[in-house]
Structure formats: structure tokens, C-alpha cells
């Protein structure tokens, strides 16, 4: 084998502001042309590892390096970001932060401009690379005219103009809907094949990354490498699960059915998965044994939208004749690709915008003309980014903010806030500054600050975006508890696991129209619907077909029912 292109030897790193090293004694070789996935939960050190490769560490985030790190022949810790950027192209997680130029063409050319490349050559390169990633028709467009997936392609083009040997992707799927995530992985695959670059992907969404072939997975936790092996090997053990990485759903199902997973069965992709007769029988038997979950009784209607139409400008209508019903005590997800009007619908429901026509009824009462404030007492809205909602420095003050104009006495406010904090598990922290909290805890604070107003329904925008499995579970279990207390929960989401596991019902949008109102399982088993709503068919569906189960939809239903009963047993 050739010499490694990236080589860590006894490498450790400690941030200047921290007492403990973040990376301990890393030994890792990555070879030219390899595709490597670095996986690990939040705070595991996987992003730190990536920043060492592209030079953000130690040049932007100073600290102490020991051991050696060679990147494409360069002694990384003793070179510079600029030198490394000739060898490593980094695509950051936030596509809006990465997109610096005013138009696509300018952004792709950015690095060439900094290298003082002459204009004719620059234009040629931009054209060539834009063609390679499929944005050649968009060179004059501004960032806000592009979808998230297109922005990401531009980001990739912008680092490829340097003819780098290594492409580094920092959580490339975090901000994308499942369908776009799928095509991103296809694009990375295609680019790797064409250019033979080395690809390093940092992600915790394992099943989505494995949509295309990956040579190796490096599992990182607590600053150490726990595994460095093929996907088949790693998926056959329990290391992933033990370290807070979610395994592909079809493997979970196989394990429920008692099928033993071994590397020979090629568990890394459903299409390559080899099941013998015995395995298939186990799955079928499990399917019969579990049985159909009980039907939930119909409950009274809480919120109803009738013939809603809306556009920010008269010439561009966003929502077209939307009709929907939310029942009391339900948990519902709203899905569909970016820009299809999901967030706009949320704004209409909260009264941030007024529909051009149509009606909103809450418990049968018309609230279309009610003010934001009066609606907020009934419907709570939680933004995607808690940092955009939090405006006080202490937890107690933050949660109490919404009550300050309610006319309640200080004493009443204190009681209500404390009660809410107890429900949200934040009571022990009530006098802490918010800055000391983790992302998940901050999210809880924002939910608490909405809950304190006593709403009947809370509406959350992407509650789990960018969260690893542990935080995801923490947030979702908390929402489920609230739901059991009688709060109706509506979520805008891209997360198919969330849909399947927590929301029996899903409303799917496409092009500003409601295209489906059915069970989450049904949405994820219908190829046409998944495509129109920018989702991905669930792998459970494929597994059922592979095992010759003629009612795959029921298989999915039973899987969900089984998981729920398992959780209840645990509680």
C-alpha cells in the first residue's frame, strides 16, 4: 500500500482554555483515495480531529499539540492554514457561513481570487468545477435564491478549485432534508470516483452516510479512537450503540427479531445485506408474533385550518388552499422540503403573519384575527435555534419573561415558573446562568419559557436538528412526557426517525400544498410521497420486502408499536 496521506502519530491536543486534553494519543493513518467516516457523539472530539487536519487547530483555536501529524507531506501543526488549504478542502456544516460571495460564481472563485489568479483562467476553472458539481446553470444567482443542497454543492465547488488532495466534510447532512442528504452522498461518491481524492466525512448520521460505500469508519469518543475498521465489522458489534451512535433502522429490526449480525452478512447497506433462510424466517416469525398495535381512539379537534392561502408578496403565493386538523393530545409532524411553506404555516398558526384568505379555528373559535400575544397564551412556538430565543442571562428570568405582562403577582409568577422548571427538569439549575448550559438544556429552557404561559399546543421548528442520538432522545422523550401531560405537540421536521418513532401522524407538504395527511409510516413507505416531500423511503420497508413480507406497511407499524412498548417497559 502507498504511504498514508494523513498520518497521526501519538498525537494529542489540548485547547488553551481547557484543563484536559481533548484528543489523547491519536494514531491514525488514512491512505490516498480512501473514503473514511469519522463518527462519534457530540463532544467526542471528532470535530477537533477534523480541525487538526485543516489547520483551524492550532492556528485559529490555539492550544498545545504533541506528537506528529502529517497531511499530504506537510507537517501540519508547524505549517499554516494557507499552506494546508492547498491540500485540504473543507466544506463546513453551515452552508450560509460557507457561502461568502454575493453570487454563486463569485463564491466558487473566492479562493482563486485570494491566490491572485488572472481572470480568464479563473472564469475557466469556475465553469469547469461548477459543471462537475452540477451548478453550472446557476452562476449568477444569489445565495437566497438557492436551496440548501445547492448551497452545499457551491461550497464543495469552492474548495475543489484548488485541486486539493483531501476533501473534508464537517457534518454535511446536518442541515439537509433526507432526499437532499441522499443526493449529497451520491455527489460525494461521484466526485471521489472522478477525482480520486481522499474523502473524510465527519457525521453521526450513520445510516444516511452509508447510503454510498465507505471504506472505513473511525469511531471516536472522549478524545480517543475506539474503533478503526470496516463498516461491516463495526455494525456487527455493539460499540456504536454503546457510544451513542444510532445504527441503521433495519439492523435494529433484525436484532429485535433475534437475527445475529455478522460481517459476512454485509450489514453496511440494505442492498448488500445477505440473509439466509433462517434469518428470514426469524423476521417473519417476529412480524407475526408482535401483532398490530391497537388503534388509538379519535379525539376532539383542537386546531383547524380552513382554506388557508398566503404569500409574502402578491405575485408569489406560498400556501395554496391548506386544510388541516389537529386533535387534542396528538403528536404530529409536518414534513416537506425546504421552502415549501412549512415554516410559513407555523407563522400563520402563531399569528406572526395573517393569511390572505381562509380561517384558523382553535376549539371551534375563530382566531384568525387574534394578535400574536393573545394567541401565545394558547399556542407556544419554539424556534429551531435556542440562541435566537434566549434573551436573559439567568434561567429563572428567561422563563419568567413571558409572564411579566400577564398581571400575575410576583408570588404567582414565582410559583408558576418553579412548577414549569420542575416539569422540565431544570429546577436544580434555576439560578444558573444560561451560558453554562448545554445545547439540549438550552432547548429545554426555551420550551419551558413557552410552556409557562400554559399553552394547549406547542409548535416546534426542527426540535432535533444537528443533535446526536443521545440529545435527540433526551429532547424527544421530554416532549413525549409533556404530551402525556396533555399538551398537544406539533413539530416541523426533516428527521424520519423522529416521525416514525414519535409522531403517529404526519402532514406532508409539497409546493405549498398539503399532499398527504396520514400515518408517518404510510408516508415513509410510499415512494411517490417520499419523493414529493423530499424524504427517503424508510429502510424498514425495504427490509420487509427483502424478507418476503407482503404487507410491508404493517411491518413498519408493528416495529413502531414494538419500540414503544419496549420503552414503556423501561419506564
Amino acid at each position, binding site marked *: 500500500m502507498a504511504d498514508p496521506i494523513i498520518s497521526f502519530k501519538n498525537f494529542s491536543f489540548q485547547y488553551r482554555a481547557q484543563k484536559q486534553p481533548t484528543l489523547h494519543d491519536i494514531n491514525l493513518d488514512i491512505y490516498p483515495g480512501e473514503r473514511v467516516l469519522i463518527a462519534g457523539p457530540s463532544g467526542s472530539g471528532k470535530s477537533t480531529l477534523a480541525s487538526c487536519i485543516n489547520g483551524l487547530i492550532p*492556528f*485559529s483555536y*490555539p492550544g498545545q499539540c504533541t506528537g506528529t501529524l502529517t497531511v499530504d507531506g506537510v507537517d501540519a501543526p508547524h505549517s499554516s*492554514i494557507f499552506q494546508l488549504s492547498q491540500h485540504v478542502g473543507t466544506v463546513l456544516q453551515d452552508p450560509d457561513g460557507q457561502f461568502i460571495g454575493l453570487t454563486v460564481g463569485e463564491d466558487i472563485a473566492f479562493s482563486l481570487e485570494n491566490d491572485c489568479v488572472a481572470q480568464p483562467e479563473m472564469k475557466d476553472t469556475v465553469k469547469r468545477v461548477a459543471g462537475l458539481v452540477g451548478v453550472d446553470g446557476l452562476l449568477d444567482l444569489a445565495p437566497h435564491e438557492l436551496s440548501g443542497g445547492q448551497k452545499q454543492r457551491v461550497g464543495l465547488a469552492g474548495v475543489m478549485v484548488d485541486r486539493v488532495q483531501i476533501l473534508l466534510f464537517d457534518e454535511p447532512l446536518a442541515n439537509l432534508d433526507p432526499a437532499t442528504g441522499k443526493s449529497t452522498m451520491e455527489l460525494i461518491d461521484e466526485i471521489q470516483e472522478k477525482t480520486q481524492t481522499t474523502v473524510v466525512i465527519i457525521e453521526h448520521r450513520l445510516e444516511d452516510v452509508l447510503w454510498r460505500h465507505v471504506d472505513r469508519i473511525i469511531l471516536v469518543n472522549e478524545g480517543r479512537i475506539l474503533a478503526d475498521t470496516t463498516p461491516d465489522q463495526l455494525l456487527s458489534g455493539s460499540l456504536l450503540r454503546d457510544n451513542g451512535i444510532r445504527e441503521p433502522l433495519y439492523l435494529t429490526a433484525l436484532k429485535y427479531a433475534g437475527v445475529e449480525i455478522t460481517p459476512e452478512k454485509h450489514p453496511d447497506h440494505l442492498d448488500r445485506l445477505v440473509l439466509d433462510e433462517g434469518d428470514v424466517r426469524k423476521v417473519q416469525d417476529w412480524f407475526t408474533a408482535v401483532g398490530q398495535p391497537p388503534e388509538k381512539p379519535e379525539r376532539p379537534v383542537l386546531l383547524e385550518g380552513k382554506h388557508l392561502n398566503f404569500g409574502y408578496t402578491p405575485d408569489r403565493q406560498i400556501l395554496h388552499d391548506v386544510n388541516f386538523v389537529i386533535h387534542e393530545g396528538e403528536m404530529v409532524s409536518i414534513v416537506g422540503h425546504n421552502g415549501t411553506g412549512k415554516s410559513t404555516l407555523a407563522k400563520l398558526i402563531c399569528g406572526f403573519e395573517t393569511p390572505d384568505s381562509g380561517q384558523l379555528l382553535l376549539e371551534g373559535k375563530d382566531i384568525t384575527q387574534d394578535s400574536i400575544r393573545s394567541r401565545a397564551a394558547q399556542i407556544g412556538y419554539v424556534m429551531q435555534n435556542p440562541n435566537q430565543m434566549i434573551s*436573559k*442571562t439567568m434561567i429563572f428570568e428567561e422563563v419568567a419573561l413571558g409572564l411579566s405582562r400577564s398581571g400575575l403577582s410576583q408570588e404567582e409568577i414565582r410559583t408558576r415558573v418553579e412548577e414549569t422548571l420542575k416539569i422540565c427538569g431544570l429546577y*436544580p*439549575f*434555576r*439560578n*444558573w*446562568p*444560561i*451560558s*453554562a448550559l448545554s445545547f439540549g438544556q438550552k432547548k429545554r429552557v426555551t420550551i419551558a419559557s413557552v410552556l409557562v404561559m400554559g399553552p394547549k399546543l406547542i409548535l416546534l421548528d426542527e426540535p432535533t436538528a444537528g443533535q446526536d442520538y443521545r440529545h435527540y432522545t433526551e429532547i424527544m422523550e421530554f416532549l413525549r412526557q409533556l404530551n402525556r401531560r396533555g399538551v398537544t405537540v406539533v413539530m416541523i421536521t426533516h428527521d424520519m426517525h423522529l416521525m416514525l418513532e414519535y409522531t403517529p401522524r404526519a402532514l406532508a407538504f409539497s409546493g405549498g400544498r398539503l399532499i398527504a395527511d396520514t400515518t408517518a409510516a404510510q408516508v415513509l413507505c410510499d415512494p411517490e410521497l417520499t419523493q414529493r416531500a423530499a424524504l427517503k423511503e424508510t429502510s424498514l420497508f425495504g427490509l420487509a420486502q427483502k424478507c418476503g413480507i407482503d404487507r410491508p406497511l404493517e411491518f413498519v407499524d408493528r416495529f413502531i408499536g414494538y419500540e414503544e412498548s419496549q420503552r414503556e417497559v423501561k419506564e
Partner: protein
Amino acid sequence: MNKNSSVKTVVAVGIGAALFFVLGRFVAIPSGIPNTNISVQYAVLALLAAMYGPVAGGLIGFIGHTLIDLSWGGSPWWSWIIASAFVGVVVGLFAKSLALSEGDFGKKKMVTFAVANVVANAIAWGVIAPVLDIAIYSEPVEKVFAQGAMAAVANSLTAVIIGLLLVVAFTKTIAKKGSLDKE
């Protein structure tokens, strides 16, 4: 390290000017005096200048204010733009002694911040803007000084009150985690 901070300054100036623009152009908080709004952008300018220093502060004021004037469609009113830049520079001169990134913002620093802002705004609107108005536009002395005095008082108050509240809240967010106990 040095190079990095210069890239950061370029970005801070850009984002700061964008903030100055958005707040100055689209956010109107009535002051209580008819047709006069509180210019919150000067509070944000004070915070950013105190964080990033005189060069960044001056440029944020200059670029932000020029963009606002251009977006209204007139030719830029240079005398007032220069005054905005001046405020950024003067407050920025105190960046070192305020040391916001340390997170500990005591009474002494509050006084420094307030004094810096009052001085900066008083000179900018009370002297620079009117004098330039007279030099460039030959406007009458009484009018420009009356206008300048009003702006000086209003912007000083905004920068001191809102600016101070912002700075205090901001420094609290970077407070050391230290010895926090659950209760």
C-alpha cells in the same frame, strides 16, 4: 494568530455594518418625541467597537451609515457619516481597558464605557457633524448646532443605557462556569 485576528476584523466590520444597517434602516423605536426614533444602532456600534477596537469601530460606523444613506436613495450626507465613524473610533479606543472578552464587567468598567460613549457622542454630534454641515452645506449655525445637540443627547443616552445593558448581558454570557451547584 495575528493574521487570523485580521480576517476576523474584516468579517466583524462586515457583519457589524450589516447590523448597523438593519437596525438603522428597519427598526424604529419611538422615543416619545414625535417623529423621532431611538437609534439603537449606536448602542450596537458601541458594543462592537468596544470588542473589536477603533479601526473596526470606525469602519462599522462609516460603512453602515453610508449604506443606510445610499439605500434611501440620496447622496450620502458625509458630515453625519464621518460623525458616526468618529463615535466608533473613540469608543474603540477604550477596547483594551474594557477587555470585554474577560467577561468580568465591574462598576469601574461601566463608568469607563459610559464616559467613553458620552464623550464620543458629544464631540461627534455636538461638534463634528455641525461644523462639517456648515463647511460643506453652508447651513445656518443655529440650526446645525440645535440639531447636533439633540442628536448628541439622544445618541449618548441610547448608547449609555441600551449599550450598557447589552454589554453587561453580553459579558455575563461569557462568565466563567466556576463553581455552580445544583440546588
